[in-house]
């Protein structure tokens, strides 16, 4: 073995033996550094005869190039190994639980969700949302809605009253959202299409009655709307709200002082455990009251009942929420029990839209 061959073998052994980049650098300096073994020999080329240089030059240069290449190759290997080692050392236990995002814990109450659902459905049908005060006058809550003074229908409302003022006028908590009908007719010019969701109050308390509850009122006033339109609208609503293909509805003649004719609406359903399935079964479930706005009410609003006509409907928001989402007890709606709210409440970004389906 020539001198150069043994040098190359020696350097290669050192390169292959280098276990990290620092050691490799030492090897590189020892071979190719200013005073390295290869560099020193290259320096010796100057003192050689041309003939000697002719053979020694290419040999030495070749040696230098091969060593450089070997160093580079080894460096890549060592770098990769170093990175792998670092990464291994940096590993953490990703099964450790993270903190819950506020988005996961927040909830919207079913009543708010259902109001948003109602708004989405009715806005699409050209309705806007109206509202009125909770503290009402006897006039708006009863008299203007054609409840004669002393009529038994007033008694059925179990009204909460405030103490009479100096003039003897006694305010009350509205017993239904219907006063919004009159307020809207007085403040808007027909055609009118509104829904009015809100809180209502009656002195009543048991499993299905609470002293405060939510109703939504609907009102259409124009020159053409009749019971047929009302029927269509309620069918559309029930289908959209309960998110079923088909709803079978039954309208029964009934009585409300502020509508004539008046009807109650039942929908066909089947009860399976706490679920109510619509469009099947033999049960009829009453969900709302409705009718053509009474001529006296239209007259009270300052309109001519021979020119203007329309219909109104009202239903319990809590009740339709219970039917759709299966809450068994109305009282729990107002108890603010975190367990109930977390279970029956809706995620903040569950925005009811017609585009995405109300509750999907």
């Amino acid at each position, binding site marked *: 073995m020539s001198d150069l061959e043994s040098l190359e073998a020696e350097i290669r052994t050192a390169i292959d033996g280098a276990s990290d980049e620092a050691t490799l650098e030492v090897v590189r300096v020892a071979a190719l550094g200013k005073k390295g073994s290869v560099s020193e020999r290259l320096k010796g080329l100057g003192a050689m005869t041309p003939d000697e240089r002719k053979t020694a030059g290419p040999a030495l240069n070749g040696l230098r190039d091969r060593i450089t290449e070997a160093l580079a190759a080894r460096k890549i290997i060592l770098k990769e190994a170093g990175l792998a080692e670092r990464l291994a050392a940096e590993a953490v236990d990703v099964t450790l639980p993270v903190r819950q995002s506020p988005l996961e814990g927040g909830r919207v109450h079913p009543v708010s969700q259902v109001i948003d659902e109602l708004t989405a459905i009715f806005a699409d049908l050209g309705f806007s949302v109206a509202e009125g005060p909770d503290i009402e006058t006897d006039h708006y809550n009863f008299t203007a809605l054609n409840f004669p003074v002393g009529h038994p229908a007033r008694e059925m409302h179990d009204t909460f009253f405030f*103490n009479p003022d100096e003039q003897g006028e006694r305010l009350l908590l509205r017993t239904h959202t219907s006063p919004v009908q009159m307020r809207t007719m007085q403040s808007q010019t027909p055609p009118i299409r509104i829904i009015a969701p809100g*809180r209502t*109050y009656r002195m009543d308390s048991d499993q299905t009655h609470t002293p405060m509850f939510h109703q939504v009122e609907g009102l259409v006033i124009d020159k053409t709307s009749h019971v047929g339109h009302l029927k269509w609208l309620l069918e559309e609503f029930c289908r959209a709200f309960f998110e079923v293909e088909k709803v079978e509805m039954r*309208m029964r003649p*009934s009585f409300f002082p502020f509508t*004539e004719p*008046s009807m109650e609406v039942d929908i066909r359903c089947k009860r399976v455990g706490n679920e109510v399935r619509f469009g099947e079964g033999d049960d009829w479930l009453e969900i709302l009251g409705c009718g053509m706005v009474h001529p006296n009410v239209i007259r009270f609003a300052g309109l001519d009942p021979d020119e203007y006509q329309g219909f109104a409907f009202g239903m319990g928001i809590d009740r339709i929420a219970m039917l759709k989402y299966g809450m068994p007890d109305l009282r729990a709606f107002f108890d603010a029990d975190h367990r109930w709210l977390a279970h029956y*409440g809706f995620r*903040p*970004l569950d925005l009811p839209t017609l585009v995405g389906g109300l509750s999907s």
Partner: protein
Amino acid sequence: MKFTLSWLKEHLDTSASLDAITDGLTRVGLEVEGVEDKAKTLGAFTIAYVVSAVQHPNADRLRVCMVDTGSGDPVQVVCGAPNARAGMKSVFSPPGTYIPGKDITLSVGTIRGVESHGMLCSAAELELSNDHDGIIELPADAPVGVRYADWAGLADPVIDIAITPNRSDCLGVYGVARDLAAAGLGTLKDGAVAPVPGQGPVSTGVTLEFGDTPSLCPAFGLRLVRGVKNGPSPEWLQAKLRAIGLRPINALVDITNYLTFDRGRPLHVFDAAKMQGGLTVRRARDGETLMALDGKTYTLDSSMCVIADDNGVESLAGIMGGEASGCSEATVDVLIESALWEPLNIAQTGRKLGINTDARYRFERGVDPAFMVPGLDLATRLVLELCGGTPSDILVAGDIPEPRLSIAFPISEVKRLVGIDPSEDEIRRVLTALGFTVSGHAPSLTVGVPSWRPDIDGKADLVEEVMRILGVDRVPSTPLPKSEHAGKPAISLGQLRTRRAKRALATRGLVEAVTWSFVAKAVAEAFGGGAPALALANPISTDMTDMRPSLLPGLVLAAQRNADRGISDLALFEVGQIFRGTKPNEQFTAATGVRRNTANVNGSGRHWQSKAPPVSVFDAKADALALLDALGAPVEKFQIIAGGPAWFHPGRSGTIQLGPQNVIGWFGEFHPATLEALDVEGPLVGFELILEAIPAPRARPTRTKPPLDLLPFQPVTRDFAFVVDRSVEVAKIIKAAQSADKVLISTVSVFDLFEGAALGADKKSVAIEVTLRPTQKTLTDGEIEAVAAKIVAQVSKATGAVLRT
């Protein structure tokens, strides 16, 4: 109102099935609430003969009976009834029968080692009475093997319908029959009553005495029947009354109850022997009392109408008779009263005294005035039939009103309001069948309203009559035309804010509660409310007396209830109405949240990364500001002022405002005294914003956003640490720093706050980072140093701060 199928058929000639009738009732607006058909529920119970009854070998109180059920071989039944004995007839139910009174289904059982193949039943087990002392004993001629319900006449279904307040005409079975006949479910039988001739005048005089006050009794009819023999009424009458839940008393009383339900005509009977002098119908005198037929004594006043004689008040008009003059089996001469009363007065009196009777129910809804005298004749006829006696003539005091309402009815109204177009003949047929008189021809009919329909007063009422009898199901579903409003916002700014506030707070991990609009007075007072005008006159409980002035107490109390259930870290919010006065513009919408214990926005309780600290005023402030931002409010324009309302910790609360006149809301830790008053435990923080106080955004002609200028110059940041008095508000330092160069300085943030002895007493160190964002060119070191010097100068001048070196 309840009635039996056979009772209905006394007035309605029909071959319709029970199902057709109940469907028909609901269809015309007489909603069926229930049908009790004992033929169905008791169908399996049969009459049986007890062949033998011997002592049970293993039980003293049981007997082993062999029972002939009519099927041939007697069956063995173990029976515990003390009256079970050989030779008796009773009611038997085979295995597989559902026993309504026990809510069980029988199976073959082994009782103390002896097999039992069925059961002998008590009346209670069949839900016929409360009698469970022994098994039913039947007469010897009861036919073995026959269905018990058929034999006992129980197979007559009882129909229960809900009558809306307008339909007083259907508070009698006859009126119900009329509606069904109009709807095509049979023919109404003639209900006319032939007058019963009297034999001489009534000996008792009647005076209607109301002086100057409005009369409460338009007309009063009276008849005396002498020489009656009162006693239990016949079985047909008792059975009818029992079927609808009434207790038979004696023939005279049963007759009045019968006519109340048969014709909707309440009557009253007095025992003439117990009366003294003539009758006066008048207002009660204040303080007069009456021992009524329910055994209770009522104290009356001058708003109430009574029937009195020389003994005093004998009856509370139209509501309930008096005990003293009531009819008993000893009654020989009976005075029968059939009168008309002011509906409103009856309702008020009944409500005031808390008396609900079938008579009141009908009089306050309005009885048929034209039937006052026929009702009296019908009652007389029944008295003569059941009790014998000699009738007097009828005496009528006052005048029977004869309402003659006639309505012009353009038949096009049916199409206009309902959307169906029935023929003139159809309309005429329906109205006539309901008892209206119809004259004239299309386009407009003249319709006379019958005396029994006080609810009808206009053409819309006639439209309803036509619609309900023809059937609402005939109305075709008609799409509503597209609205002019389509595409415009459906909700107002206030409604939009309410919706957004709910979603925004929920994204911060708060859970929405809906709490009562009313709170206890003490609670209202603790939060600035409790004004007398906002207190309910008739609260349902002492916890719900006053309209809430704030949503905070409801949420704080709810948080405590949850803590009591073991959920101590929780964040609740509500967006809802609060009341500062009774007027509509004094009702506001508050968006309010509370956080309890360690319920931070980024989590609560212990966690391996960090333990959540107790909530502080800054958590409440962060919620409030995040909400304002979500509502699109100009957060940078709001002032945060130290301190808040009295229910907050004075040193750990703040007020958010746009000038002192426009307070938007508050945030803070609760005052310990408030927590004590509400009996709750902290740590508890909360905020409340009044949505109406937030200014509305300026109306803009387009939705274009302002242009964005992306500058190419590198921003520069510089840090400053100032030592200031502890009382100096950091907001002042920030404001002063910003004022150093309003163009260059884009943000000032506080990155460190330190208090310590090294700084000196009552001193603190506040470190801020100022970002300079050049707009024209990259800044030179000299320019940066110049701004920095100005910042130090401004902050020192405004706050007395010293730059920390």
